[in-house]
C-alpha cells in the first residue's frame, strides 16, 4: 500500500489538470472529478495508516531531480507516523469539504475553476506533507500559498478580496524569506536537504558549537525556519493576513485557513523538531513557545470583539494555532500534533457550520442573526458540538488535546500556562457569544429568509461532528492514549495525565461559557456597559491592536515610497551621476542643459553631448577666411616647433 504513497498528491493534481483542460464538460462540471481525486487519496492514506499501525519503519522513495554540482540531487517522499497522521487529516477533512462545496458553490460562474484550485491545493498540501526534504517541503509550502492566494481572491471582482489575497501571499512570503534563508543555512552547514540526514547529523552534534553572529548556529537556523511557520500559521507578528483571508468562499476558509494549510506551520515545526530540540538549551523551542503563547492570547482577545462570524472563527484559529505552537514549544510534541488533528476536525466543522449559516442568511454579521436554532437544526447542533469541542468541554475532542498542552505548559513554564488557561477561558467565552447571538432567540434581520442547507452540505457537517466528538479519545488515558505512542519524539517524557488538572481545565471552559451566557443570553450585564467599562482597552482590541495600521506605516508605504523614489532616481539621478563621471571639464552650471538636449543619460550619451557642444563651438574656428587658415598653419608650425625644440 505504502508504495502507492506517491499517488496521494498526484491524484488531486491529475484532477486539477483534467478540470483545467475540460472544465464544465466533466461530470458534475468537474466537481466529481475533484472529489474522486481527493477521496482516492483518502482511501490510500487510510490504507497506509492501517498498514502503518503494524509499525514497520518509515518509507522513503526518491527521484533524481537534477544534477547538483558534484553530486546529483535526489529528492522524494517519506511516509512515517507523523506524515500518515497529517495525510489522514488532510484527505478526510478535505474530502468532506469538497463534498460540502458541491452544495455551497452551486451556481457559481467559476464553479469548475473553484474545484480546480481546491484540487491543486490538495495536491500541494499533500506534497508538503509527504516531502522528505526541505526543498520539496518549501515547494509545497509555496504552492499552497499560491492556492490560498488564488482562492482568497476567488471573488476577485470584490476589491477587498483582491487586496486580501495579495496581502496573504506577501505576508506569508515574508515568512518564507526567512525560511528559505534557514534552508540555505542548513544546506551549507550540513550539505543536504534530506530530513533523515539532517536529523542524523544534528543529533550527533554536527553543528555542536558553530555560531553565527554570536548566536548558536543551530538555533538561528531553527528560528529562521520557524519564521516560515510564523507566516503560514499566522502567528504574531505576521498574523494579520488570516482574518482578511475570510474574503474567500467559506469552504476555502474551512479547508485552507482552518484545517490544513495554516496548520502546515505547526506541522513543519514538528517535522523538523530535531533542530529545535537540539538547539542550545532548547532556545529555539522557547521562542516558539512564547510566540505561540502571545499569539494565542492576543487573537483570543480580539475574537471576543468581532461581530463577523467568520472573523471570530479566524481569530480563534489563530489563537488555537498559537496554542499548538505553545504546546510544541514546551516539549509537548505529541500534544501539539494532537491538538492540530482535533482542531482540524472541529474547526472545519465550525467553519462549514458558519458557512451554512451564511449561506442561509447572506450575511456574516452575528448581530443580524438569531433564532436560527429552530430554522436550521442540524447546522445548530453540529455547530454546538464544534463549539463545545473547541471550548474544551469533555469528553469532546478539544478537551483532550488542549488539556495535554496546558499540562505540558504547566510543567515547564507557569507563565505560559497562565496564558494558555486565559486563552481557553476566552475561547469558551467568544464561542458561546457567537452561539447566543446566532441560534437562540429571534431573528433580528428582517430581509433575510433563512432555511436549512441541502443534505449535501449538512451530511458532511454531521460526519465532521462525529469526528469532533470522538477523535479525542485517541488521547484518553483510560484507553492508553494511543496517540502518545503513535506520535512521539524520542527523548521526551510525556506528562502524566492527572484528573485534577483536567478538572481545572474543564472548570475554566465552563466558566467561559457561563460568562458568555450571563452577558449575551440572560443579559445580566449588558455587553454595551462592558464595552464602556473597558473603554480604551476595548478600542485597542476591537482595532486588532492597530497592527495593520502599524504595518501600513512601517512597511507598505515606505516600500511604495522607496520604489517611487528609486524610479525618479533612475530617471534623473543615476544618469546624473553617470553624467558627472564623464563631466570632467564642463562646469556644473551647464549641467542642466545636458537634460534639455535630447541626449539625457549615460556616460556614452553624455560623451555625445559634450562632443556636440564642443563641435558646435569649435566649428566657428572655421571662419571661411583663407588667411585665418594660413595663420593657423603658421601657428601650428610654431607650436610644433616649440614642442619639438623645448621638449
Amino acid at each position, binding site marked *: 500500500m505504502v508504495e502507492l504513497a506517491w499517488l496521494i498528491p498526484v491524484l488531486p493534481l491529475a484532477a486539477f489538470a483534467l478540470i483545467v483542460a475540460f472544465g464544465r464538460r466533466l461530470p458534475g462540471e468537474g466537481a466529481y472529478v475533484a472529489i474522486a481525486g481527493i477521496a482516492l487519496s483518502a482511501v490510500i492514506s487510510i490504507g497506509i495508516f492501517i498498514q502503518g499501525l503494524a509499525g514497520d519503519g518509515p518509507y522513503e522513495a526518491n527521484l533524481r531531480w537534477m544534477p547538483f554540482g558534484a553530486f546529483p540531487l535526489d529528492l522524494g517522499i517519506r511516509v512515517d507516523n507523523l506524515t500518515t497522521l497529517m495525510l489522514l487529516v488532510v484527505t478526510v477533512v478535505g474530502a468532506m469539504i469538497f463534498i460540502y462545496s458541491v452544495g455551497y458553490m452551486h451556481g457559481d460562474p467559476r464553479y469548475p475553476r473553484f474545484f480546480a484550485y481546491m484540487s491543486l491545493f490538495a495536491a500541494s498540501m499533500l506534497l508538503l506533507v509527504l516531502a522528505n526534504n526541505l526543498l520539496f517541503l518549501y515547494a509545497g509550502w509555496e504552492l499552497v500559498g499560491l492556492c490560498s492566494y488564488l482562492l482568497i481572491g476567488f471573488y476577485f471582482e470584490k476589491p477587498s478580496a483582491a487586496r486580501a489575497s495579495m496581502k496573504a501571499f506577501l505576508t506569508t512570503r515574508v515568512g518564507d524569506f526567512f525560511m528559505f534563508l534557514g534552508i540555505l543555512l542548513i544546506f551549507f552547514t550540513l550539505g543536504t536537504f534530506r530530513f533523515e540526514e539532517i536529523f542524523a547529523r544534528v543529533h550527533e552534534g554536527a553543528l555542536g558549537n558553530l555560531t553565527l553572529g554570536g548566536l548558536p548556529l543551530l538555533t538561528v537556523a531553527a528560528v529562521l525556519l520557524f519564521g516560515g511557520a510564523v507566516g503560514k500559521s499566522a502567528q504574531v507578528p505576521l498574523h494579520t493576513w488570516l482574518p482578511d483571508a475570510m474574503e474567500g468562499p467559506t469552504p476555502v476558509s474551512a479547508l485552507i485557513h482552518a484545517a490544513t494549510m495554516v496548520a502546515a506551520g505547526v506541522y513543519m515545526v514538528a517535522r523538523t523538531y530535531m533542530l529545535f530540540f537540539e538547539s542550545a538549551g532548547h532556545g529555539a523551542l522557547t521562542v516558539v513557545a512564547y510566540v505561540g503563547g502571545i499569539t494565542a492570547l492576543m487573537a483570543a482577545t480580539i475574537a471576543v470583539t468581532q461581530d463577523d462570524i467568520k472573523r471570530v472563527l479566524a481569530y480563534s484559529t489563530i489563537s488555537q494555532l498559537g496554542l499548538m505552537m505553545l504546546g510544541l514549544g514546551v516539549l509537548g510534541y505529541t500534544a501539539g500534533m494532537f491538538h492540530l488533528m482535533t482542531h482540524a476536525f472541529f474547526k472545519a466543522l465550525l467553519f462549514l457550520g458558519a458557512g451554512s449559516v451564511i449561506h442561509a442568511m447572506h450575511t456574516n454579521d452575528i448581530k443580524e442573526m438569531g433564532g436560527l436554532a429552530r430554522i436550521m437544526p442540524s447546522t445548530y447542533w453540529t455547530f454546538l458540538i464544534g463549539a463545545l469541542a473547541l471550548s474544551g468541554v469533555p469528553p469532546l475532542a478539544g478537551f483532550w488535546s488542549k488539556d495535554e498542552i496546558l499540562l505540558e505548559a504547566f510543567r515547564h513554564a507557569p507563565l505560559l500556562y497562565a496564558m494558555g488557561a486565559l486563552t481557553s477561558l476566552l475561547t469558551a467565552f467568544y464561542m458561546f457569544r457567537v452561539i447566543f447571538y446566532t441560534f437562540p432567540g429571534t431573528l433580528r434581520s428582517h430581509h433575510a429568509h433563512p432555511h436549512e442547507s441541502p443534505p449535501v452540505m449538512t451530511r458532511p457537517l454531521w460526519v465532521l461532528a462525529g469526528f469532533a466528538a470522538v477523535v479525542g479519545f485517541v488521547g484518553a488515558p483510560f484507553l492508553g492514549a494511543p496517540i502518545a505512542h503513535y506520535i512521539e519524539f524520542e527523548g521526551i517524557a510525556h506528562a502524566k495525565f492527572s484528573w485534577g488538572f483536567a478538572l481545572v481545565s474543564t472548570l475554566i471552559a465552563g466558566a467561559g461559557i457561563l460568562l458568555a451566557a450571563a452577558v449575551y443570553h440572560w443579559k445580566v450585564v449588558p455587553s454595551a456597559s462592558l464595552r464602556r467599562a473597558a473603554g480604551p482597552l476595548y478600542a485597542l482590541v476591537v482595532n486588532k491592536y492597530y497592527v495593520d495600521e502599524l504595518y501600513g506605516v512601517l512597511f507598505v508605504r515606505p516600500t511604495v515610497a522607496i520604489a517611487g523614489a528609486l524610479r525618479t532616481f533612475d530617471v534623473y539621478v543615476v544618469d546624473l551621476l553617470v553624467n558627472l563621471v564623464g563631466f570632467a571639464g564642463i562646469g556644473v552650471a551647464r549641467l542642466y542643459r545636458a537634460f534639455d538636449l535630447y541626449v539625457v543619460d549615460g556616460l556614452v550619451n553624455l560623451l555625445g553631448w559634450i562632443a556636440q557642444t564642443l563641435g558646435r563651438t569649435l566649428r566657428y574656428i572655421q571662419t571661411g577666411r583663407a*588667411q585665418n587658415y594660413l595663420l593657423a598653419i603658421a601657428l601650428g608650425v610654431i607650436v610644433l616647433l616649440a614642442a619639438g625644440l623645448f621638449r
Partner: protein
Amino acid sequence: MQLGLTHFLILSALLFSLGLFAVLTRRNVVAILMGIELMLNAANINLVAFNKYVAPAALDGQVFALVVITLAACEAGVGLALVMSAYRHLETVHADEINIMKW
C-alpha cells in the same frame, strides 16, 4: 670676418618671414602670391647656399632651386588665372571677402 653659410641662412630666414608676413596679412590675393614667391626665394637661397657650402660634390641644390623656380612660375600662372576668374565671378580679389563657405 669671412662670408659664410650662416649669413645666407639668416638672410633667407628674414626673407621667409617677410614673405610669410605678406601671406598672412595682405588682403589682395596677388599680394599674397607675391609673399609666397618671397618664401620660395628664401628656400632657393638656402638650397644654393647649402649646395655651395655643404654639398659641393653634386649640384642637387641648384637643380632643386631651378625646379622650384619653375614651380613658382606654374603656381603663378594657375594662381593668377584663379584670381582672374574670381574677379569675374566673385567681383573681388580680396581674400577676406571670399568666404561664402564657412563653419
